[in-house]
């Protein structure tokens, strides 16, 4: 291998491959920074066994997967709509692009804080709107309701990422030859038919890639929840990354926290593997 790749490889080895291995190794040990006199005994898979019986872990697992399963399709749908609008915009294209890029570029923490302010139980503008429409009672507080607390989390995530999806999909749309649409409309196909028979099939590869990007991101959900609910009320909105963080940084249980971190890694890795195996192959088949 050429010397030119050595620095990058060194960083990747030192900064992520070795640490991943170290996390997996740490997960096989009992290691509590608050009980240093216990040392760091090797305990095999005990941490994973404990996690399997830990209802808080199982709930966090369900939260993580359910969050990805709900938000990714919403983001793809909204992103596709936004991309179609951006494509047809003849005037003000740069303004639309700027409006789409801003939410993507804003720090996640900022997006989360603003949404939390807008959904605040007393002062939030969205809460006030819902109240004046009679959709929620006068005492309703999003952050106190175990399901309601997911709403601002989802809104912040969708607001920040749907425009990013739109930018990816717009690039895919622009590679579609307009002659196809012209030919189809000469043959009498309306906009709906053309969308289903030309746009969608040709956009599928880009959609698959965008969905993978989004799902991998959603499975490591942390920032938005930390800022908006901190996992609450109770642990009703706690995803895996946050539970692992709490086990590590607040309880200082490094062995157990590492085991939880490994499950986040395995979850994303497993998803990527399945995604590439099933859809990657079918895409290659379509292209061949």
């Amino acid at each position: 291998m050429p010397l030119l790749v050595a620095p990058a490889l060194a960083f990747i080895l030192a900064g992520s491959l070795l640490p991943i291995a170290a996390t997996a190794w740490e997960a096989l040990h009992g290691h509590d920074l608050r009980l240093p006199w216990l040392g760091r005994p090797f305990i095999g898979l005990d941490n994973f066994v404990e996690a399997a019986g830990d209802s808080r872990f199982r709930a966090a697992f369900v939260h993580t997967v359910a969050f990805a399963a709900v938000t990714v399709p919403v983001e793809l749908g909204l992103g596709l709509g936004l991309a179609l609008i951006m494509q047809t915009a003849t005037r003000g294209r740069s303004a639309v692009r700027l409006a789409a890029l801003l939410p993507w570029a804003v720090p996640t923490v900022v997006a989360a804080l603003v949404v939390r302010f807008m959904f605040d139980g007393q002062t939030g503008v969205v809460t006030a709107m819902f109240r004046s429409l009679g959709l929620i009672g006068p005492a309703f507080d999003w952050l106190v309701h175990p399901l309601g607390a997911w709403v601002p989390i989802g809104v912040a995530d969708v607001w920040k990422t749907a425009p990013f999806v739109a930018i990816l999909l717009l690039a895919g749309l622009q590679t579609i030859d307009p002659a196809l649409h012209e030919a189809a409309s000469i043959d009498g196909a309306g906009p709906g038919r053309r969308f289903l028979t030309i746009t969608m099939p040709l956009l599928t590869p880009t959609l698959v890639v965008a969905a993978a990007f989004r799902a991998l991101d959603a499975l490591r959900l942390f920032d938005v929840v930390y800022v908006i609910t901190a996992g609450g009320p109770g642990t009703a909105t706690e995803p895996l990354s946050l539970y692992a963080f709490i086990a590590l940084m607040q309880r200082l249980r490094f062995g157990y926290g590492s085991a939880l971190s490994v499950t986040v890694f395995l979850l994303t890795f497993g998803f990527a593997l399945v995604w590439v195996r099933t859809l990657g192959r079918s895409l290659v088949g379509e292209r061949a």
Partner: protein
Amino acid sequence: MNAFRFLRIAAAIALLGLLLAPIYWMVVSSLTPEARLFQAPPLVPRAITLEHYRALFGERQFLVPIRNSLVVAALTTLLAVPVAALCAYAIARLEFPGRGLLLALILSVSMFPQISIVPPLYLVLRTLGLLDTYPGLVLPYVTFSAPLAVWLLTGFFRQLPRDLEEAAMLDGASRVRALRDVVLPLAAPGVATAAILTFLYCWNEFLFALSFTLGPDRQTVPVAVTLFRGRYQVPWGQVLAATVVATIPVAVFVAAFQRRIVAGLTSGASKG
């Protein structure tokens, strides 16, 4: 103007409004006096105040996290982009075994969930005394931002014609010299895009900064804003002023380089 076209324009304007509404609300609220933040809010501000910004830079000392974020982002960019450029050039131009594997490895590293490497990094940084220091943040940041830069720059280098550097090497320039004097100037737009995306990554990053800093001295902007506390409740005026300040550099970058950013973001996706 027919009805279909009118509907489309109306939908476009509504969507634009929805996209920008949170940013508008953030700016307006940060200029609203604290007492009025707790009343039913008017959509157009009636009284404007800079009290939150004054408190932010006065008693909150918000210049400290801004300085920390700038230093960490600048150091990371200065380190990650050259490292990535060398690697990307090798992948784009040289034939060597394991090239495809290397690119796949680099791409998959950028998809790692950050939490999965927090425990050993924390223990190592603690042992080395690097918790709550700039290097303690720059190391993980380079690791996570370099792969994206490699991916992006590989695409840029592949688009450049080979003839010029081959001519330079025929004239006796070494490959590194050809890279420095011929390829890099031509690839300047790509390098700039990689630098912008790296900078934005560092400016936004939260989990590492939260885990590897211990107090206000080294906290970056996202951590500092999140941990704002008032005596009784969230000091929303100051928090929102801080979010506006955190958004300004991002907005400037995006407005100035929107074409390049879009080209950079989509180069990975469209190549599959």
